[in-house]
């Protein structure tokens, strides 16, 4: 074994055994530094004959490259080991819970959500949203809507009244959203297409009635709108709202002072295990009232009933919310029980759209 091989074995052995970067650097200096063992061998090349150099040169240079390579390799291995050790030490318990973010806690009330859904559907059909005051006059809530003074139909409304003023006139809390259609007809030229969601009030309180509830009224006035159009609008709405491909609706003749002809509308459904499904089954569920706007109402709003015609409908927002989303009772809607709101409420970004679907 010659001198080069011996040195090679010795150096490579020491490099492989080096435990840290400092030891490795020391080895580098010992071997490849100015006065290192390999450097010393390299220096001997100058004094050699060409033949000797031809023979020894590659060996000595090879030794230098080998040592150099071994040091680099060892350095990388040591770096990797050090990184591994650091990472192992830095481990965290990823199973620890994070705080629930505000967007996970916040909720939109089902009534707001359903109003947004209604707005989205009717907005696409070209309806705008009209609103009116909750504190109404007797004239707009009843008289203009063709409720004769003292008529039993008024009594059916269980109205909340305020104290009479100096003229004996008393304001009331609107019993339906229909005064908004009167306000709209008085202030707007046909063609009219509006829906009017809002709060309504009746002196009624039991499992299925609350003294305050929500209705949405719809109104179409032009020179052609007829009962057939109304059927279409309501069918399309119900399909879109309940997100089903088809609904079967039953129009039953009924009576409202402000429409003639009038109808109540039932929607076909099935009830299985307390769950209501539309578009199937053989039960009927009353869902809304509607009709052609009464000629007296048109006249009361300054429209000639032989020229203008149209239809109106009204339905309970809380009711259709219950039907769609399955809340069994109405009263909790207004009790602000955080458990109910968290369960039945909607997430802040559950924005109903027609393109993306009303519900995701």
């Amino acid at each position, binding site marked *: 074994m010659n001198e080069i091989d011996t040195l090679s074995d010795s150096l490579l052995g020491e490099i492989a055994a080096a435990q840290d970067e400092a030891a490795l650097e020391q080895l580098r200096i010992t071997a490849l530094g100015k006065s290192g063992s390999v450097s010393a061998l390299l220096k001997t090349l100058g004094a050699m004959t060409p033949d000797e150099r031809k023979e020894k040169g590659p060996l000595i240079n090879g030794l230098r490259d080998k040592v150099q390579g071994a040091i680099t390799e060892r350095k990388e291995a040591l770096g990797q080991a050090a990184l591994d050790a650091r990472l192992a030490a830095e481990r965290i318990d990823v199973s620890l819970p994070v*705080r629930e973010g505000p967007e996970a806690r916040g909720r939109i009330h089902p009534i707001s959500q359903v109003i947004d859904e209604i707005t989205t559907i009717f907005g696409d059909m070209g309806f705008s949203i009209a609103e009116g005051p909750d504190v109404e006059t007797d004239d707009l809530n009843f008289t203009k809507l063709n409720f004769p003074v*003292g008529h039993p139909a008024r009594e059916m409304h269980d109205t909340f009244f305020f104290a009479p003023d100096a003229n004996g006139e008393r304001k009331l809390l609107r019993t339906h959203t229909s005064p908004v259609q009167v306000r709209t007809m008085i202030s707007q030229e046909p063609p009219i297409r509006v829906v009017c969601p809002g709060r309504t009030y009746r002196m009624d309180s039991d499992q299925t009635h609350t003294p305050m509830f929500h209705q949405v009224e719809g109104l179409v006035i032009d020179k052609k709108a007829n*009962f057939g159009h109304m059927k279409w609008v309501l069918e399309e709405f119900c399909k879109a709202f309940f997100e089903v491909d088809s609904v079967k609706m039953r129009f039953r003749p009924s009576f409202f002072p402000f429409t*003639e002809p009038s109808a109540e509308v039932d929607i076909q459904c099935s009830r299985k295990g307390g769950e209501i499904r539309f578009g199937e089954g053989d039960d009927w569920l009353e869902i809304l009232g509607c009709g052609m706007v009464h000629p007296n109402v048109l006249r009361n709003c300054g429209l000639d009933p032989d020229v203008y015609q149209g239809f109106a409908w009204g339905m309970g927002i809380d009711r259709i919310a219950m039907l769609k989303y399955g809340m069994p009772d109405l009263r909790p809607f207004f009790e*602000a029980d955080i*458990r109910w709101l968290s369960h039945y409420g909607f997430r802040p970004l559950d924005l109903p759209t027609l393109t993306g679907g009303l519900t995701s």
Partner: protein
Amino acid sequence: MKFTLSWLKDHLDTTDTVDTITETLTRVGLEVEGVEDRAKALQAFTIAYVIEAKQHPNADRLRVCLVDTGTGEPVQVVCGAPNARTGMKGVFSPPGSYIPGKDITLGKGVIRGVESNGMLVSEAELQLSEDHDGIIELPEDAPVGMPYATYAKLDDATIEIAVTPNRADALGVSGVARDLAAAGLGTLRTPSIQPVRGSFPCPVKVALDFAPQDKKLCPAFALRLIRGVKNGPSPEWLQARLRAIGLRPINTLVDITNFMTFDRNRPLHVFDAAKVRGDLTVRRAKAGEEILALDGRTYKLNDEQVVICDAHGVESLAGIMGGEASGCDENTVDVLVESALWDPLNIARSGRALGINSDARYRFERGVDPDFCRPGLDLATVMIIDLCGGEASEMVFEGELPESRPAIDFPWSEVKRLTGLDLPQVEMKIALTSLGFHVSGAGERVKVAAPSWRGDVEGKADLVEEILRIAGLDRVASTPLPRIKAEVVKPVLTVLQKRTRAAKRLLASRGLVEAVTWSFISHEAATLFGGGSPKLVLANPIAADLSDMRPSLLPGLIRSAQANAARGFGDVALFEVGQVFFSDEPEGQVIAAAGLRRGTARLEGVGRHWDGAAEPVDAFDAKADVMALLSGLGIPVGGLQVVAGGPAWAHPGRSATLQFGPKGVIGAFGEVHPKILKALDVKGPLVAFEIHLDALPLPKARPTKVKPKLSLSGFQPLTRDFAFIVDAKVAAGDMMRTAQNAERSLISDVTVFDLYEGPGVEAGKKSVALAVTLQPAEKTLTDVEIDAVGSKIVTEMTKRYGATLRG
């Protein structure tokens, strides 16, 4: 309105089933609310003969009966009834039948070791009566094997319909039959009525004692005496009918008036002539007059109510209820029968004022057929003489029937115009005539006269409805409503509507949960929050604590927060966006947005957590919510002033009013005042904000959607920190503005990065540390230039707030 199938068949010749009839009723607008078809419910129960009843070997109280049910093979039944005995006839219920009174389905069984293959039932078990003392006993001639319902004439379905206020005519079975006949279900066969010729003059005269303007209170009054009647229980068929619709049979005369009420929508009244003194006067009551009515109650009257009097005084409440004193009983021999017309409005008002809901009131306030006033009395007369004997007087008739209404000018095209349904003229004409309308003329336009019983029909639209409901609403084809313009829909929401929607989403995204609370709150709460105006107090609240229209959303939210805390959920964050009320005019109603946080319900998290427990909420949580709301709504807040001190509901030192100038107040935020918490019985910590969305500045209309040009500086921003010692009461917000204004063109941002009071800082003073960011626009700043800005800031702070730089 209730009636039975057999009653209906008095008026309608039909072979249709109960199901077809009920479907049709609903289809023509007489909505069926319920059908009680006992024949269906009781079809399993048959008449049986007890061949033998002997003592049960293992039970003293039981008997083992061998029963002949008519099927041939005798059946063994164990029976516990004391009256079960050999040779009796009873009602047998086979295994598999449903026993309504027990809500069970009967099975085969072994009772105390003896097999039992059915049951002998009591009336209670069939829900026919409360009688459960023993099993039903039938007469000897009851045919074995016959369905009991058929034998007992229980196979008569009872139908209940909801009658809308316009359809007074359908409050009589005859009117219901007319609709069904018009809809094609058989032929109307209501018997016609022949006028009764009295054999002697009526001895009692009638005076309608009204001022000329009051004549409408009683347009007509018909009266007749029938003498020599024998009153007593009415015949079984009449009693059965009344019972089937929930009325209690009383005596024949009274039962006949009830029958007429339901059969023909013609309420009548009968007076025992022996108890009537002198002639009858119909007049307004005198204030303070009293009457003991047939319901056993005494009513005190006023001059709004109409009464029928004799020489003694008030004998009857006109059109509402008769008086006890002149009522008919078993001893009545001579009876006065009244058939009158009353003013619907007056009847409704009087009935409401007196709190009487009678079948008569219900009909008179909806309007009876005026032309049936006389025939109704004649029909009742015939019935009375048939059932009670007697002899009728001539009819006294005072007042006059209203004139018939003018015919309606009706173009047939109206049906298509309003409904889109194209019907043959002949079909439309048949529909109207079969409902009793009279159509005259021919061609495209006809004259249509409504029958006297249809007081609700006043114009063309009503005729369209009649034709449509008989034709069937299902025949109207659903027709797409064309868009007003063929274009992509334009946005429809107003600024306020958009802001209302956005505010809800925004607040929810901050972890607040949307509540919808009552629009009315207690008077006390309303007053505490700046409301309570008499104009906004309900005259008839549903509950004492729901009396005032809310001036603020906060009372409702605070109450809700407390309710949640009481249920164990104290860390709640709630909001509401909704109407609040400042006057009873439309302008007095505005949309507010309010939010509150209770306990530790902070934005970043609630309650204890391994990463650090959430602190109790403070006013800055509310401020953060409201500022986020404003920024989310795109409201420029550069001009927004945060003025220390809020409304009465807020802690005066921990609240602020938000305003765009003194006249532009938009709301407030802060900690809820301890006094309010106490008054509402609520525990804190509770912080809240409320703003009026109506009060927010409107966005400026811009001609283009292009955003302002973005100009970026090529030079890095740099930050300098300053710590000032100032009086504790100096507002940091003011200091920030001062710093900002010191060199507006260079200073792009100022924040407070530290705040300190305590050891090292003189008492009554605080250290406010500002980080000021400079953004050079044209060149890198030299140290001299930067120092110059710093000096300016320090000088201004010293000048305005007596601030010194902290050493």
